[in-house]
């Protein structure tokens, strides 16, 4: 589904990603872990197509398409969803209006008619129930005045509505209390299928207790230095990152 | 005959007295022409819409007042109670006797001396304050021969505040008209604090037209405090123009607590990136008093900041005016400009006209202004009273709290406590607000 080969990217001439290799197949859950500043969020931004970052080398292929040729919205239409670490506020634009626009733009790109209002409302109700979201939420301006937890829940709600093939959850657990974490994780698990994939970017094991990864990758200084199964995450939780850094030292 | 007529009548004599270096003679003549063409502004002039000069101009002024004397006690009374460099002027003339410049790490010259010889002064005079559409600056530029030139050399940190004290002596029994010009050059990476005060010790209805041009070079830090608490017949038109180079900080705080008529034209010209301008003020006036603040921040380069905070409390039939203008040129991206003007009217006859104005030509900027007019919070009043605080004290406490933000930037502790006690006195209470 997603194949990343030797990806290098920089911002303002400072190289952040220094040769990333990653292969994500349908039905898989990948966790990318790493300390602050290791390049986790850069990776998600580069996959989503944020223009602040310059891709200097390597390739990204998504379902047979070269991502570098696609604008951010085209990547979204292709099925990439990024749950933002810091979702932005858009005053005056209601959640409903925003979602309606987003869904219908994606449909337009696929040559489909806009979704009938009735169907959309039905889908919204379903997904809201799934994420235990109150109805009043729909008419609020997007992310404006939302608490940290509401913002993250709103991200997953949008994901549920847009039904992406690949969901990248960037630090979705930060700012969530234990109940919200459970609800969000539960939502993600319910939406998971054999056809889609999830990449969880996180600092801590916490979220991985709820969303079980098939693969865990450690990102350090712009490179994936170690990969393993879910036990690697537990090991990291216990020992921190220092032992991997040490392990890397002789090579680097 | 009004002041305009009096000036035109004696213009050749005034021009002669002004004198100065050849280099500035042309400028003086030109300024005089500008003044003659434009005259004093009327309320039809947008910048004078709310402030009529008519009552000020119609007096019979003495344009060439001879210098009187002031006592040591009088000087002490109006100066900071602290170690300082002190420059005292009496009726426009420099008083060596009362001044104290011992071991000063900067150069001081009287304006006339400076304009006679000093290159730096000649390079500053008329370079920052424009004469077009600025009748008072034009008039001052044409005739001013009294005032100060201060030169703070590169890298110099002036440890003690510099006091600029302009007294009108008791000897003046008519209405004297003073034109004072200050030229201040704060060179690269210097640090300066100025305390400026104009005080009339007698009963005369003095009018001062003061123009101060301040050049703040790169990396310099410059603080200027103006305390305006003059006797009830005095009028002051203060024109202060500050030009800032990159990475400099300049602040002018204005505390307007007295006088009959005060007009402050305060302008900051930002000419280097990453500079910051601050203008804070407190106005607290009462019977027959008028204070008018006109500010301008001209953002011409990117990445700069400006901060304005003016608080006003008006009692009796006092009249307040605030006109803040923030101008952001299209080149001045990433400008951060903030302006706030809060006011309380306490009596039926008090009035206020305010116009916080923004003119923005760059898109990536953060500019905001806010303006409020209101009364004391009744809930807060009730809360204080329910704790046994009497009405007057409760009121004073809340008003004091209202002003406090604007006092926050005062770095001179002596000045801060002096202002606090003046404010307390004006609020009619004996409270120690430091508690």
């Amino acid at each position: 589904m997603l194949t990343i080969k030797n990806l290098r990217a920089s911002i303002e001439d400072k190289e952040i990603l220094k040769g990333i290799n990653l292969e994500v197949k349908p039905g898989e859950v990948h966790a990318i872990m790493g300390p602050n500043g290791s390049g986790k969020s850069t990776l998600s931004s580069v996959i989503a197509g944020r223009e602040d970052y310059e891709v200097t080398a390597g390739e990204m292929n998504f379902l047979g398409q070269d991502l570098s040729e696609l604008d951010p919205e085209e990547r979204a239409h292709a099925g990439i969803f990024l749950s933002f670490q810091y979702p932005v506020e858009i005053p005056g634009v209601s959640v409903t209006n925003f979602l309606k626009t987003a869904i219908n733009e994606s449909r337009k790109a696929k040559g489909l008619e806009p979704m009938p209002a009735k169907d959309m409302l039905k889908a919204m109700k379903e997904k809201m129930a799934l994420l235990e979201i109150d109805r009043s939420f729909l008419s609020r301006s997007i992310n404006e005045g939302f608490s940290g937890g509401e913002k993250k829940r709103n991200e997953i709600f949008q994901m549920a509505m847009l039904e992406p093939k690949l969901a990248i959850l960037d630090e979705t657990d930060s700012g969530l209390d234990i109940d919200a974490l459970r609800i969000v994780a539960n939502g993600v698990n319910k939406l998971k299928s054999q056809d889609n994939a999830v990449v969880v970017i996180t600092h801590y094991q916490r979220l991985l207790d709820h969303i079980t990864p098939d693969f865990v990758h450690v990102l350090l200084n712009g490179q994936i230095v170690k990969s393993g199964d879910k036990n690697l995450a537990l090991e990291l939780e216990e020992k921190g990152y220092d032992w991997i850094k040490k392990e890397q030292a002789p090579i680097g | 005959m009004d002041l305009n007529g009096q000036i035109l009548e004696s213009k050749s004599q005034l021009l002669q007295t002004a004198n100065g270096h050849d280099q500035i003679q042309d400028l003086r003549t030109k300024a005089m022409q500008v003044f003659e063409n434009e005259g004093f502004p009327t309320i039809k002039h947008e910048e004078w819409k709310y402030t009529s000069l008519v009552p000020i101009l119609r007096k019979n002024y003495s344009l060439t007042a001879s210098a009187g004397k002031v006592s040591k006690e009088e000087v002490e009374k109006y100066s900071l109670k602290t170690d300082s460099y002190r420059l005292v002027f009496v009726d426009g003339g420099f008083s060596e006797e009362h001044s104290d410049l011992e071991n000063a790490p900067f150069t001081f010259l009287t304006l006339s001396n400076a304009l006679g010889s000093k290159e730096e002064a000649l390079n500053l005079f008329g370079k920052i304050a424009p004469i077009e559409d600025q009748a008072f600056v034009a008039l001052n530029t044409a005739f001013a021969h009294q005032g100060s030139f201060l030169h703070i050399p590169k890298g110099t940190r002036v440890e003690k505040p510099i006091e600029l004290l302009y007294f009108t002596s008791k000897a003046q029994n008519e209405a004297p008209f003073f034109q004072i010009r200050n030229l201040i050059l704060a060179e690269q990476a210097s640090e300066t604090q100025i305390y400026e005060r104009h005080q009339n010790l007698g009963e005369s209805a003095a009018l001062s037209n003061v123009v101060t041009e301040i050049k703040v070079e790169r990396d310099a830090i410059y603080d200027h405090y103006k305390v305006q608490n003059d006797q009830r017949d005095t009028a002051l038109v203060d024109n202060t123009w500050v030009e800032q180079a990159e990475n400099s900080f300049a602040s002018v705080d204005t505390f307007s607590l007295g006088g009959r008529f005060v007009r402050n034209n305060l302008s900051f010209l930002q000419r280097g990136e990453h500079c910051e301008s601050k203008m804070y003020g407190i106005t607290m006036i009462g019977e027959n008093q008028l204070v008018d603040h006109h500010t301008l921040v001209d953002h011409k380069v990117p990445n700069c900041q400006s901060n304005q905070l003016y608080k006003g409390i008006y009692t009796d039939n006092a009249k307040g005016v605030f006109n803040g203008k923030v101008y952001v040129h299209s080149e001045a991206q990433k400008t951060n400009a903030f302006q706030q003007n809060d006011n309380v009217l306490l009596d039926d006859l008090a009035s206020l006209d305010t116009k916080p104005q923004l003119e923005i030509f760059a898109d990536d900027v953060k500019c905001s202004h806010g303006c409020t007019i209101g009364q004391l919070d009744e809930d807060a009043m009730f809360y204080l009273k329910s704790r046994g605080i009497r009405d007057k004290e409760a009121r004073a406490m809340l008003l004091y709290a209202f002003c406090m933000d604007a006092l926050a930037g005062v770095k001179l502790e002596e000045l801060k406590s002096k202002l606090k006690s003046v404010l307390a006195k004006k609020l009619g209470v004996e409270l120690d607000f430091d508690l």
Partner: protein
Amino acid sequence: MAEMAEEDKVLNEVTQSEYKYGFYTNIESDRVPIGLNEDTIRRISAKKNEPEWLLTWRLEAYKRWQEMEEPDWANVDYPKPDFQAITYYAAPKQKKKLESLDDLDPEMKETFDKLGISLDEQKRLAGVAVDVVMDSVSVATTFKKKLGELGIIFCSISEAVQEHPELVKKYLGKVVPPSDNFYAALNSAVFTDGSFCYIPKGVRCPMELSTYFRINEAGTGQFERTLVIAEESSYVSYLEGCTAPMRDENQLHAAVVELIAMDDAEIKYSTVQNWYPGNKEGKGGVYNFVTKRGLCHTRSKISWTQVETGSAVTWKYPSCILKGDHSVGEFYSVAVTNNYQQADTGTKMIHIGKNTKSTIISKGICAGHSNGSYRGLVKMGKKAENARNFSQCDSLLMGNSCGSHTFPYIEIDNKTAKVEHEATTSKIGEDQIFYCNQRGIPTEEAIALIVNGYCKEVLNQLPMEFAVEAQKLLAVSLEGSVG
């Protein structure tokens, strides 16, 4: 840097779009000779078969106008119109007096259809009665009958002069006297038509009343006069739409609108103004110099809502005189300027009565080489005990060649007054656009979405049908590729 250029390009694209309503209807027109003098006025008056008092009133206004100078204090810059080069009266020539809409000239009907105000449809749609003023005269008023049953008078002002002279005489010029300003004086002298609306005591007008103004003939000026009177405890919501075809020379529009809200009455006045703004180089376009003012009696309320996207030059300050105690004034405005448009608009809230309250929400959006100014006055007089005002003036700049200006005048003569004024300037954040992009929304669409969100507080004030139209208009004004 490549990124910046790209962004500029997108901004450019989305802010460019040709004027949609720029078509010219080829209808034979009945014009009075060009130029302005007493004769012109006598001719207009005679053509309209006016009573003597009105002619006298006009001539008096003309005399005052001659003594006045065109105002130059606004933040707009334009070649002054040549008042002698304007046609002051241009009525579409009709074969006979219209009995019903079906008799309407087919070509004129087509014009209305192009404007999207198909009268046939409007008629069927519940709720909107339309009075269409094309160039200078009112050509059709729908729903008259139904309104008549309630005692509501809704007709052209010319008709009102004939049918209800006592009402017109009583109120005309009472809120905006002929000597009020240069354009008001001009309008008083030469006004050719406009709408008249009278809501009797205690009546709540069951439908939105709507007027559509249109300048069609080349070189004409439109000087319409609108008078709305809401008697005690009545309510009316009034809508006004404006378009003009694309023309190279500047066309002048100097209207006067007077509202009178008697005790406990409420008037809601909404405008969507889309006069031709000129082309991308700033050539042509309408000069829109309008005086709008409402007078509020005790406990009454006047609410102005405007969406201003058109005109080359706009000079307009819908105001409220809050004379009665407990009266309320509101002003909600969206003003979009693009290319070389200039708009100087805002409001005046004059608090005279006790416990009067006003709210001002102004949203300015500037793009291209345009300049947008908010100019407002909040005045609280000596007797206006406990008067309240809240003002919020925001501006959004798109690109770096436009200018946004805020001139709020606040004049307070009463210690019990409470005024809160806030203003901000901002731009559309790149992170907001990226967020939308990531959800599959293209940049142009994202800008439209964000701008509409930014204007929401104002758009919410419009009646539903108008809000939809206004939203589309915003999109058209700002988004070439999408609209």
